[in-house]
């Protein structure tokens, strides 16, 4: 385990912050790190950006761990292990569908696609305006569609609202999604009939991050999300029977 001082903190709005660390590894879009708050706990977080020698992680305050994280100041040390997992593939004419903090891994993906000069369209939704993190960044490098639950920015509603229309209008050939699981279920329902290939960046409770504890394994496929995921494509997902249903908590019990 190596620890690194926080180099910079950016607050996107209440309860949403980015933390920057000296970049000591190169991660593929979609890969994640385990972030250790000494004395507290360690949890997985997607890398949202690699730029200017810094690795960025973007976090939404949620439970005890992320609330503790919000209190951290520049110079304090956090443990960083990784990068872990299997990232996104890189395809032309893609649509990036992000929900809430799920926008974080998509930002890293957008950065990479843009660097490679590959066309993509962004479809981002969140509870409210400030949770649409990196929206100006996405706007600079792609066509964007925004949705908020409260209508404070973009259209009021869910990202799935006009999904099929957007796919058609933008001649989308590949779909990436990251966000709450319920979003995946809806997206999947809508796009499965189109047979457009897709990749979801998923989350599960994780312990080891290195493929041995079995905590993050998806029924019935046996896929370890921390190694073969967190990005899964439509084929990987065929064997997954638990999407949007109960999954395992810290004890390993389904809930």
């Amino acid at each position: 385990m190596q620890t690194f001082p926080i180099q910079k903190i950016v607050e996107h709005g209440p309860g949403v912050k980015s933390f920057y660390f000296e970049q000591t590894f190169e991660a593929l879009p979609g890969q994640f790190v385990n972030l250790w708050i000494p004395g507290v706990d360690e949890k997985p977080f997607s890398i949202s950006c690699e730029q200017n020698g810094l690795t960025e992680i973007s976090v939404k305050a949620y439970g005890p761990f992320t609330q503790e994280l919000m209190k951290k100041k520049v110079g304090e040390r956090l443990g960083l292990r990784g990068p872990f997992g299997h990232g996104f593939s890189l395809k032309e004419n893609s649509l990036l569908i992000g929900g809430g903090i799920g926008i974080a891994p998509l930002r890293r993906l957008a950065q990479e696609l843009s660097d490679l000069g590959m066309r993509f369209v962004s479809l981002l939704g969140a509870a409210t305006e400030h949770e649409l993190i990196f929206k100006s960044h996405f706007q600079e490098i792609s066509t964007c569609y925004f949705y908020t639950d409260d209508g404070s920015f973009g259209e009021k509603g869910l990202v799935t609202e006009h999904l099929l229309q957007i796919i058609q209008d933008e001649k989308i050939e590949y779909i990436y999604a990251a966000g709450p699981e319920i979003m995946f279920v809806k997206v999947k329902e809508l796009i499965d009939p189109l047979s457009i290939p897709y990749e979801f960046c998923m989350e599960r409770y994780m312990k080891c991050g290195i493929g041995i504890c079995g905590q993050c394994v998806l029924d019935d496929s046996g896929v370890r999300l921390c190694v073969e995921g967190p990005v899964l494509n439509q084929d990987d997902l065929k064997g997954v029977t638990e999407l949007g249903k109960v999954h395992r908590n810290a004890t390993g019990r389904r809930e």
Partner: protein
Amino acid sequence: MKTNFLNLQLNSPLVLASGILGLTASSMKRVVDNSCGAVTTKSFNLEARKGHPNPSIVPFEHGLLNAVGLSNPGAEEAIKEIERFKQVSDAPVFASIFGRTIDEYGKVAEIAVKAKPHLIEVNVSCPNVRSEFGTPFGDVPEDTAAITRLVKQVAGDIPVSIKLGPHGPGIARMAKVCEENGADAITAINTVGPGMLIDINVQKPVLSNKTGGVSGPAILPIAVKSVYEVYKNVSIPIIGTGGVTHWQDAVQMILAGASLVSLGTAVYYEGIDVFNKINMGIQTYLEKFGYESIEDFRGGAH
């Protein structure tokens, strides 16, 4: 590489060790699809346990340090996974059980039996829960004897293996105690230590539990020695565990006296494919020496 063990037929002498990918039927199935001969479930007890906060498993240069804290969904949930596994695979499945009291071992075994596992492995040696439960039962001959008798009574015709650690009053002596009290096999060893690693910049132990058991390559010599001594002292078969990463390590274990060899941390170092690789290595070894099966050299270092 067909292997007989007690009354069981395995497609390989390699077993998935308890605590590694043994939480669900789907991951155990995946390991068997990669040529593992039998699987052991994560140890479970009566009630669900969350285990210790993270970091609970950290690699160091020579192995892993873990203090998962025996997280498990509880016996009733755990046996559902065993039942699911048996529906999708023919490979033997070993139910690993533990208890916070001697009595609890009996109760958990009663539940385990319902799923008809091919073997019950009794974990009396986890070093990570020492502070919570006091000395591991496996360090106290009387307790180990009592637990062995109790589980055997409940297990009926399901064979019982007691999983021992290298600590306490001597593993060879403890193995004898198990044999005398009816155990059908010995699993040796559990993790070693415990150990601790401190982050020198934040000046704190890295594991949330501060201390954790050491597994992986660092402990191979201790595991080989333990199997060797147990083999000398008892006539029941041994499931050799600890630090096996390459096929040569597995051969060492068998030469020391192991009937089956189980792998945990190797899955981290070599991936799930490690079972294939080690099977192939052992096969080459058999051919080189003209052996027909691993029984031809088991215990050969004595």
